[in-house]
């Protein structure tokens, strides 16, 4: 399943400063569908190169990180239980403050 993953608001610094990652991954053994829960753990293992605590807390993202699946807050699609489809775009963005 081909996904586009984007990191912003400083989170790209955790993945070698690369903002856009085109990845190809499959559901876990025994599962039929790929969920956000599985994607998060895959991202932590495969893309996050430093300070993983700035990306995750427990099995979800840390407070202050917005997760968007096809430009919609994952809160609207079931958070960790959101199922992904081919060509979905998932954005992880840390909220900024100041200016």
């Amino acid at each position: 399943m081909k996904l586009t993953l984007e990191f912003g608001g400083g989170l790209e610094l955790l993945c070698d400063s690369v903002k856009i990652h085109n990845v190809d991954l499959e559901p876990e053994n025994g599962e039929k569908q790929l969920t956000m829960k599985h994607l998060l753990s895959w991202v932590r293992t495969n893309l996050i190169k430093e300070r993983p605590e700035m990306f995750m807390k427990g099995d979800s993202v840390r407070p202050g990180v917005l997760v968007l699946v096809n430009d919609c807050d994952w809160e609207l699609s079931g958070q960790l239980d959101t199922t992904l489809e081919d060509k979905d775009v998932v954005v992880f963005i840390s909220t900024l403050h100041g200016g």
Partner: protein
Amino acid sequence: GPATGHGLAPDMIYRYSRQLLLPSFGVQGQANLLKSSVLVIGAGGLGSPALLYLAACGVGRIGIVDHDVVELNNLHRQIIHTEAYIGKSKVESAAAACRAINSNVEIVEHREAFRTTNALDIVRKYPSFHAYKLPLVSGAALGLEGQLTVYNYNGGPCYRCLFPTPPPTTACQRCSDSGVLGVVPGVIGCLQALEAVKIASAVGDPLSGRMLLFDALSARMRIVKIRGKSAQCEACGDKAALNERQFQEIEYEIFTQTPFSTAPLKLNL
């Protein structure tokens, strides 16, 4: 004439004629704007363009809150200040710039930081104040990125609906500590002024329940749908004690060491 009953003097009709000509804004939108009050928190990178545009287009009363003085390393992005004001109060400098553009606007100067301890005192100086109905135009610009959304608008989410748990303070960079390209807060500050004008004039659809994400380097701009008001929200939900908690959001932002930047609060809508 078209301004009958709206109290627009002839010089105002001339000054704002290009806005009065707009069918979807017109005399009613301008009259609403002239009666409105906006409080801008911070006369820095975001506040600079926001204040200039709010004053220019005819907001009736503008409060400016900031405790800083102008420094040379502000000037690359804080375009409301000039070299002549280096070392002087940002509020004084910004107020002078707003008055020079539009002497009809009432400018209220608050030369202090916006903190839990004085937030209510500052906001109470504005008549017809209803804390629990206070729309907040929240913007941020850091490095080469910017973000913008509207909180507390017409049944939309508040800051704490979106972020029920405070982010770790280490996650909150500020542009005074890190880099920012001058014109990035310019873009976001202008968009903040626009949202404040839309709310104050009661024209258009404010960016509530949506968030704008701006990436300057790649020239990308996306507007995403964010969650709505949460019934469980500690600050604004069904069980929240509004009287006591109406400023929790403000406390919250102060707590995380990340004061909201330009935050025009629309009063007496």
